[in-house]
């Protein structure tokens, strides 16, 4: 398993919670930017010639704001430069306010088969507060275009004034529109975003309230047939995101575009966050990597554990033993014993019990700490 990520750093306007690399005022650079991304792919071609990629994920920003033909060309460029599996999962993120039938048809024709829609909430007042460019009506229109297709909806928990009822309504809206997958995120107020000020002023629901509302959401999703397969991700059976599962299995992935991250051959690296710098590098024939870190044995184990335990299925003990040539159960027997209230072993998987997925850092720390102690 290996994945390709492409970052499209453009959007119509910046949302109040967003700390991703995205430039609302630079849409005019889209053409040059995409040309650079194609070029960056070509630069990686030789290095990755033995990889078979199962997934492509086009994220942002808002990839759907740029001309759909650039997106089509992007998929073509990926297929030209790399081996892409026949049945590859190809996802694009989109904003409900930026989609049209024509766009959809271009996306589908080039091979995109999964859509991720940023609804966030079904309450127009909250959408406005977030600085989203769409409203509920836009989403419902977009949903019509997506009817019957494999699409996912993002839902956000912890908004100003949000109630459990709001969340249930949002989930129902997404489910009735036909979503096969729902990502439900607790809002993380990042320093430097406008919403951080609300957070500092205590205007956002506190962490306990968020946890409570989240639980309500989880229950609702379950009733509607969505299974939780990761901390924040829920899907109808068979519709889990392969691209994201690859991250949690510690699979390899290559990222293209400004700020994109990669992990190839146990080296994690990131492209520059600076658009001009990115242009400069690619146009002069250099990669735009700024940070690169070789992950040693210990680091690999830490990552494997912390990522696997995010998933409902948990950590594959056989895989761990094979990868690291040691016996997981034996090595961590003391932790498994100490944490037995929070952890279960099921069919050769070690997993955090559903009800504790939200407090998993405390559990994972025990593993990391124990590893240091022995």
């Amino acid at each position, binding site marked *: 398993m290996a994945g390709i990520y492409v970052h499209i750093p453009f959007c119509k306007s910046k949302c109040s919670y967003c700390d991703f690399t995205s430039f609302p005022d630079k849409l005019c650079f889209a053409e040059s930017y995409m040309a650079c991304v194609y070029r960056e792919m070509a630069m990686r071609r030789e290095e990755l010639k033995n990889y078979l990629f199962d997934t492509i994920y086009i994220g942002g920003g808002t990839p759907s704001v740029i001309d759909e033909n650039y997106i089509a060309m992007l998929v073509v460029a990926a297929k030209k430069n790399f081996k892409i599996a026949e049945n590859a999962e190809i996802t694009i993120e989109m904003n409900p306010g930026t989609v049209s039938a024509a766009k959809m048809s271009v996306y589908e024709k080039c091979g995109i088969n999964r859509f991720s829609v940023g609804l966030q909430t079904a309450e127009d007042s909250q959408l406005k507060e977030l600085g989203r460019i769409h409203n509920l009506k836009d989403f419902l229109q977009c949903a019509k275009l997506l009817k019957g297709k494999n699409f996912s909806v993002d839902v956000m928990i912890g908004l100003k004034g949000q109630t459990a009822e709001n969340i249930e309504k949002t989930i129902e809206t997404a489910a009735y529109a036909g979503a096969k997958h729902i990502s439900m*995120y607790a809002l993380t107020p990042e320093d430097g975003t406008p919403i951080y000020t609300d957070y500092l002023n205590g205007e956002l629901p506190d962490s306990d309230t968020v946890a409570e509302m989240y639980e309500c959401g989880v229950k609702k999703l379950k009733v509607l047939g969505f299974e939780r397969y990761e901390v924040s991700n829920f899907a109808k059976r068979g519709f889990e995101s392969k691209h994201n599962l690859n991250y949690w299995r510690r699979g390899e992935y290559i990222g293209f575009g400004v700020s994109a991250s990669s*992990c190839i051959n146990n080296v994690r690296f990131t492209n520059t966050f600076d658009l001009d710098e990115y242009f400069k590098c690619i146009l002069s024939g250099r990669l735009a990597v700024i940070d690169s870190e070789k992950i040693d044995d210990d680091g690999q184990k830490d*990552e494997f554990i912390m990522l696997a335990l*995010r998933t409902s299925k948990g950590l594959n003990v056989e895989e761990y033993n094979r990868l690291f040539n040691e016996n997981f159960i034996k090595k961590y027997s003391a932790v498994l014993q100490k944490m037995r209230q929070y952890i279960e072993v099921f069919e050769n998987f070690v997993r955090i019990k559903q009800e504790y*997925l939200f407090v998993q*850092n405390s559990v994972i*720390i025990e593993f*990391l*700490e124990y590893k240091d102690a022995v």
Partner: protein
Amino acid sequence: MNNKNNIRNFCIIAHIDHGKSTLADRLMERTGQVSERDMEAQLLDSMDIERERGITIKLTPVRMFYKAKDGAEYEFNLIDTPGHVDFTYEVSRSLAACEGAILIVDASQGVEAQTLANVYLALENNLEILPVINKIDLPSARPDEAKKEIEDVIGLDASFAPLVSAKEGIGIDEVLEAVANYFPAPGGDENAPLKALIFDSYYDNYKGVILFVRIKDGAVKAGDKIKTFRSDKIYEVVETGVFSPNLSPKSSLSAGEVGYIAASIKSIQDVAVGDTVINAENPADEPLPGYKTVQSVVFCGIYPLDGSKFNDLKDAILKLQLNDASLIFEPDSSVALGFGFRCGFLGLLHMEIIQERIEREFGLEIITTAPSVSYKVIKTDGEEIFVDNPSHLPNVSEIEHMEEPIVKADIYSPPDYLGQIMDLCREKRGVFLQMTYLDKSRVRLEYNLPLNEIIFDFFDSIKSRTRGYASFDYELIGYERSKLVKLDIMLNGEVCDALSMIVHEDSAYTRGRTLCENLKEAIPRQLFEVPVQAAIGGKIIARETVKAVRKDVLAKCYGGDITRKKKLLEKQKEGKKRMRSIGSVEVPSEVFMQILKTNKD
């Protein structure tokens, strides 16, 4: 120069901030001991803590040469003294090494409480006292009033007192001249058997223990066999010398001189400060007077933050003890904190300084428990024991009654703050003794107070309630029967021994409640709910709950988030290293120290 008639041994007595170190620096500069260029501000206060707090903790002697107006050359030995009430014994040791004392009085502030205490100490040691009026350059200076106050309050003739500004270098020559003329030459017999007073010591990595001595009788030189009066160990003197202010070797020291002795002394227990050095082959038959075993007043547990650093902590405390005869300790262990030491101190400032020095000078992170005093416990079988560690308190059924140490406190304050001071003393279970108007701007209040009420924050409270105007001094006067109970703190049902304390029955409830409330805030939420309870003899008197953590996860963890998440966990893991497990509850080490601050007004 071995003519002891031209030696002057003296110290300087001053209230904190009245300019003692500055004057000392000035004297050294004027006698050419240090060039102005090489001067680091306030040379004598060589420890960082001393400079930062503007106080003197460690004695630092220095030798100077002065050519007087009559043409004679004098050797001056200035022995610096600590300025805080906690260090009365250190002061007494240095006073015993002198014949004279310069009394600095701030021209604008007059005589202060602490100054008085030390003046009386100096008078007890039969020292000549030379009053010096400092800070005459200040616009608020009232030198004549200051002189009058010296005459009224202390009863010294201040008419000839030099008027000085140490800061500006005014009047320094007059001080030097007065030292030469006014202070007596040291007595003593050079030909008698050796008697040298140890007034301080420190440990040198190469030379072993360096003894700071004042030779009272006889002489000492390299090769001599010496011992101290209270120990049988015999040492061969390797080096003798004087302070300039760094150690500078001198072939011998004889009666009247102040200097140091290095004799490859490795065992610190054998060279108690205040003891008398004698010649092992020609021993004097009587020690010098004034030696006393120091008495600890405040106690607390000191534990290494990192349990594996126990031996490092032990080394650190041993080394500190070498310079500080008043620091006592014994190994101790706590269920919550592991292995550490129970230490005794002269007072709260002393305790703080030791804690700070361990952390700074030895780079060790430590946990300290709440300070305690030594209680007298009379058991039902008639046995009397002293307990300073709450976890060593016998079972309630074995206790007939308990007594607590009482101090007599002298509080000096302008009359405006009398009300506030009296309120505070009442809150602290004080018993009013008397009130004396010293003059129209100063009142002296005398109270008997339980020591355990003043070890927490009395000093800070009195300063804040009087805007810093009041000063405070105390002495232990004995023990009084009192209703004392042991207050235990239970986390998730388990007693945390490191948080136990002995308190007066009347304040137990309030103290217990405050403790629980503070702990609730300080203990991070765990995976499960943690009850925090205060109990007396098994009876719960207060309870709070630390709620279980509901959410600690990073919402998104995709390709770009992995490194960040790893760092986050890494940070959390580091944080856990600073935690102690009380049963199944993880408690940050800081919590044990926050207990100190629970006694808020």
